[in-house]
């Protein structure tokens, strides 16, 4: 049956052959972003401007970076429940050591990435559930952050503030940053030859190891990438907020997971999309407060409304992709 209905595609070019289900899957995240944007434009047309986007999306950059960090972990069929606390810890380091003793700050941040790689090794070697390990680590990061900065305070290094205050012509900085983040993650994970191995380790680990690859190395690489993007997220967050607080990143764990899923990723099977994840993060950042403010929802109710929007958007995605799976 299948061989009759599918046309012979041998004449098509090697790369870029059209694939309808794949195209639909890829377009879903963009669709949800468009919906949120249309909602905002309808409620407040003036928000759709250079200045409006800079304001609305100023917190989207750290969310996008945290989402990419989470995406690397999810690509290997794991889940990082510590990314929020980690971003908070990095924020505290950034607002204190990185400003006062830059060398110590840099070494600490590089050490954080090494700790992430070691976590990957631990999870692989001991065959531990990543949820348990990272949940434990979230308390470690949180505790360290409180030790460093018992009271909110500190100050971002000046160079960081300047980067985050960039005003590029025509395109607002957060959008430009999002494009760069998406491009880097896309090339790294989706286009490089080792990226295929990394994703394959989530898709069929047995096949990867039978082909002679080290799953340990793959897992460590994925976690190290997560650590790297977690560090970048902390830096971007402090560059935006200018000072730190030990609890500043707490919401990021769930936001990053939601961003990956909203962006077309799946919890298992190594199916992730870097571009989708960034779009998902932007959608969440917009749906979080600007949309709700424009809907005149009182601040007391915004967190609950935010959660409701998240459920609606994710449910819509599941519905659409399920229809797509059973044509």
């Amino acid at each position, binding site marked *: 049956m299948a061989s009759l209905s599918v046309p012979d595609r041998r004449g098509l070019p090697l790369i870029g*052959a059209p694939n309808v289900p794949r195209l639909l899957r890829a377009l879903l995240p963009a669709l949800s972003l468009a919906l949120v944007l249309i909602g905002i434009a309808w409620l407040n047309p003036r928000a759709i401007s250079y200045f409006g986007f800079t304001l609305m999306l100023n917190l989207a950059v750290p969310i996008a970076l945290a989402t990419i960090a989470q995406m690397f972990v999810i690509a290997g069929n794991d889940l990082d429940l510590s990314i929020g606390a980690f971003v908070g810890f990095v924020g505290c380091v950034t607002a204190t050591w990185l400003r006062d003793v830059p060398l110590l700050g840099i070494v600490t941040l590089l050490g954080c990435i090494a700790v992430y790689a070691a976590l990957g090794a631990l999870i692989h070697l001991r065959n531990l559930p990543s949820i348990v390990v990272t949940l434990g680590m979230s308390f470690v990061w949180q505790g360290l952050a409180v030790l460093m900065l018992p009271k909110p305070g500190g100050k971002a290094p000046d160079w960081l503030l300047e980067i985050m205050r960039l005003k590029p012509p025509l395109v607002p900085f957060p959008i430009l940053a999002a494009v760069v983040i998406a491009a880097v993650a896309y090339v790294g994970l989706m286009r490089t030859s080792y990226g295929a191995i990394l994703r394959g380790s989530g898709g069929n680990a047995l096949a990867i190891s039978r082909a002679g690859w080290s799953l340990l190395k793959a897992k460590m690489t994925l976690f190290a990438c997560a650590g790297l993007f977690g560090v970048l997220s902390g830096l971007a967050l402090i560059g935006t907020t200018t000072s730190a607080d030990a609890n500043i990143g707490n919401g990021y764990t769930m936001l990053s997971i939601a961003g990956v899923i909203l962006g077309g990723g799946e919890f298992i099977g190594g199916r992730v999309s870097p571009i989708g994840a960034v779009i998902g993060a932007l959608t969440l950042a917009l749906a979080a407060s600007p949309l709700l403010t424009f809907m005149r929802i009182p601040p007391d109710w915004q967190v609950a409304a935010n959660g409701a929007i998240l459920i609606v958007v994710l449910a819509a995605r599941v519905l659409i992709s399920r229809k797509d799976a059973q044509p």
Partner: protein
Amino acid sequence: MTDTRPELVRLSGVEKYFGAVRALGGVDLALAQGECLGLVGHNGAGKSTLMHILAGTATADRGQLAIAGAVPANYAPGTAKQLGVRCVFQELSLCPNLTVAENTRVFHPSLTGFTWRRRAGRLILDKLDAIFPGHGIAPSDLVQDLPIGRRQMVEVARAFTVTDEPVRLVILDEPTSSLDAHTAGQLLGFVRRAVGDGISCIFISHLLGEVIANCDRIVVMRDGTTVADAPAAAFDRDRLVAAMGDVEVHARDVEAGHERRRGQSPLRVRARPARQNGAGELVAHEGEIIGLAGLAGHGQTSLLLSIFAAATRATTGMEVTASVALVAGDRQADGIFPLWSIAENIGVRSLHSLRSGLLISARREYELAMHWRDKIRIRTPDIDNNILSLSGGNQQKALFARALGSDARIVLMDDPMRGVDVGTKLEVYELIRAEADAGRTFLWYTTEFDELKQCDHVYVFRNDLIVADLTRDELTEQKVIQSSFAEAG
């Protein structure tokens, strides 16, 4: 046997144990360069285990493996690949989330640099074109979007691609099982050409005609050893079947009292596999033991599960007239509750009758468990011990006790005797017979012929369909094997 070609592979005295179960008991196997070896045998004969050892994905407990005269140290999948051993495993070993080209890259560490994607695509496409002209697969297709037959084509083609490592031996484990006749023909033609070019090939198939027609030599395995090894020309279908099966004729232990006319007792189950069109349905009456035979994974388990579902929810094409209990085959996955005691594991199917008020009566649960412990001799000092304190066979007995101790009038058994020792088996056979005489109905999926002999009536499955319907008198192993294997060509 004047073979002058140089020897490529020699396995000598290979033994492999999984726990107490012997999977391979001292296998010797040699293969020459440019030879196509057919490997046949029943499920569980040890073919796949042997191939895993050859491919480096499993290690032998004893014995030696030599490739091209040398014994490789630390033999692993990577070493095997460097030495030119490729394996197309029965379970697909492609990454579904990657494209065809990316899966080729996974196989070839040397495909790096900026143009790796294009080169990988070209490599796999050329090989697909060579093996399966008109295949309709693009290198940028995601494997998850391809139907199973095309995935198999990609996997086979990938095994024959060459970059920096040579191809000397390709193991094809059931390569044609998900291919249609046309593509299977293309593959077999290509294998013959590759063998002509000096590549060795081990070909495992249940399609005996295919094996006889395409292999130079055939090795038959049974119970973890090789029982026949001769040029393919020396075999025909019947000789192969005879070599695979139990040639000794067992005395049939039919007792006169069990000769019962079918249809005398009330109907218990009438079921029809979902894809069955035309004749063929499974019928079971009260007090009967019905066998479900055939090769593993040909629809027996799914029919049992749909009968189980039909007992609580009306289903078209299914008629189930009494309560049902299932004895799981995969104990660890869907049989035991590993944290519970033996007594709790036995009582869980009978919670209704164990209740006193809103709570479960510990006393009644204990009584039920003790009754069955004594009746089927579960060997434990204390019925309140954890279930995992029991040996595998005794865990299985506890699962039987769970089903038999319940109020279910129909017991579905999903090949429950896997890995159970002979003594336990005989005890359970007796128990099943006694329960059937007391009016219970058993539907028994089994891959072992000895167990079919316990049945009153046997249905043979192939490709999710009932293909044969044998009464107890008609039942012979030859017939079961004949109908289990598709008529080739």
